[in-house]
């Protein structure tokens, strides 16, 4: 099997934005803008009960498909629910699930990868064979199958995405740990009388964890697209709970009459993924010294 490192959008190689002048300014502006968007979205997710003008699940059939007005800033959907309120509450499900997924993938990837790399031997080869088996599947196809097995719902979507991505992380972390394990400073620590657990916790875990966080941050946009795609198919969060992918699915019947119902939640997903991807790419360029030579 070919090894290209991470999943999907990792292979997006954007040019180095190195060099002073206009480019650096543009990069700073892009970063600031992404940070602003993300801060806004996180704020929306946290303060949804305060920020939303209406109850996002309140059905009001008399006002269904209302146009944009001062009462309903973004109109209402086919059940008369306020679109703006649903968008704000939707941030909670969408952002929340991405955060949980990233945390779980990091945890499972770190535990299995570090265990495998640090202990080595037969344990290592067994864990790696399991990883390879998981990496053989196309990720989205495996996620679909897992949801089929586990049943629909947001929890199962989260589980499915974690199970389809952990192996890639475990492999990378194993490599990092094995690389560190054979360094001289580890030998020195061992000579100085440090036990294996202590050496791992003090000398190996911290640098690996730092890189792990960066790796996961590069993948956030990709995870978001996975979650919203599965929700769109109706496999994720169940109605009437608001979620962006789900809202687009709801709007399918109104596409001829009220296209804005599908456009608006899509803009939210798009902006979120973009705000995740831009800092990720800039970070990658900064960290990858081989890219700079291409300039």
């Amino acid at each position, binding site marked *: 099997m070919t090894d290209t490192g991470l999943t999907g959008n990792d292979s997006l190689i954007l040019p180095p934005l190195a060099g002073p002048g206009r480019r650096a300014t543009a990069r700073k502006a892009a970063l600031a803008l992404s940070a602003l968007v993300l801060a806004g979205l996180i704020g929306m997710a946290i303060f949804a009960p305060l920020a939303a003008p209406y109850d996002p699940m309140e059905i009001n059939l008399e006002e269904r498909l209302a146009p944009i007005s001062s009462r309903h800033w973004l109109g209402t959907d086919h059940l008369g629910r306020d679109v703006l309120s649903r968008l704000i509450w939707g941030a909670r499900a969408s952002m929340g699930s991405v955060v949980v997924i990233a945390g779980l993938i990091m945890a499972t990837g770190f535990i299995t990868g570090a265990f495998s790399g640090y202990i080595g031997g037969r344990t290592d080869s067994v864990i790696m064979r399991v990883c390879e*088996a998981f990496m053989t599947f196309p990720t989205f196809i495996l996620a679909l199958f897992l949801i089929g097995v586990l049943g629909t719902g947001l929890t199962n979507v989260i589980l499915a995405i974690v199970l389809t991505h952990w192996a890639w992380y475990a492999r990378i972390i194993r490599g990092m740990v094995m690389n560190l394990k054979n360094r001289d400073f580890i030998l020195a620590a061992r000579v100085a009388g440090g036990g294996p657990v202590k050496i791992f916790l003090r000398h190996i875990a911290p640098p690996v964890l730092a890189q792990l966080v960066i790796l996961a941050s590069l993948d956030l946009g990709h995870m978001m697209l996975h979650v919203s795609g599965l929700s769109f198919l109706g496999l994720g969060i169940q109605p009437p709970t608001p979620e962006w992918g789900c809202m687009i699915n709801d709007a399918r019947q109104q596409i001829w009459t009220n296209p804005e119902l599908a456009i608006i939640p899509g803009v939210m997903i798009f902006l979120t993924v973009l705000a995740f991807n831009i800092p990720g790419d800039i970070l990658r360029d900064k960290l990858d010294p081989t890219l700079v030579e291409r300039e």
Partner: protein
Amino acid sequence: MLKFIIKRLLTLVPLLLAVSVVVFLLLRLGPNDPAMSYLRLSNIPPTDAALAEARATLGLDRPVAVQYFAWLGRALRLDFGISYVTKAPVTDHLLHYLPNTLYLAGVSILMTIGLSLPLGIMAARYQGRWPDHLSRALAYIGVSTPSFWLAFLMIMLFSVKLGWLPTRGLGGLSHVIMPAFSVALMSLCINMRLIRGNMLEQTHTRQVLYARIRGVKEGYITRGHVLKNSLIPVVTALGMHIGEILGGAVVAEVIFAWPGVGRYMVSAIFNRDFPVMQCFILMMTTIFVLCNLFTDILYAAIDPRMRLANEGSGND
């Protein structure tokens, strides 16, 4: 070369076996009892006697290892059992829909290659000028756009507003354009930037410098030295994109009412039709693995270094 192909083919055997174990175990360890789904979809009330009988028919009362090997034996003969819904062989259903999915995926791959190649070359050629900036902006937008949303935007523009393209079903070439493009966009953007990056990397190599010193024409350098070498990693990346495209096709099939295996799979998920799911995932994974094998062979064919390394030190 033949030796290399045979070697690569042999590595697929343990890989696909591992895949089958994972698929089998996930289903058995899952919280849902297949016998329960079987009864529900057959409209039989789930009494204890009926459950026991369903378990016996489905072979669920035997030890797990026995079940696995029996299942594997039948799967190798392409027998994945009968659908709980239609009571017809699952393989027949899926093979019926498969050509449509392969058609959609094939057009998507052609779009990915056909569009990323000229756009990537343009971006590299005009590095730092407006075509390059435009392609970067497009790449950012492309990888951040959810494919299902893009599909809706296209339907709104090309079907609702302009009335140019049909919104659903299988038909002539006009039916495949929108679904295939919504599937291809992500891979297309990634590939475009990959080609650009590789080409810029190649222009700074010594052989290109030497060719320039020799006075070789710039057009020939681009075609003969730069492009040829930059396409090698693209072939490998394409193997990975096929996985994304097969996954993306599921979403596109649902939106555009495309009669493919993905759409059938989604309805099977809602019905808890387990044999369909098993057959679907094994079918898709096998296609994916074979595509990767094909790109590996292609890679070896165009890059002699790779072939020699593989023949010299053995595979893996």
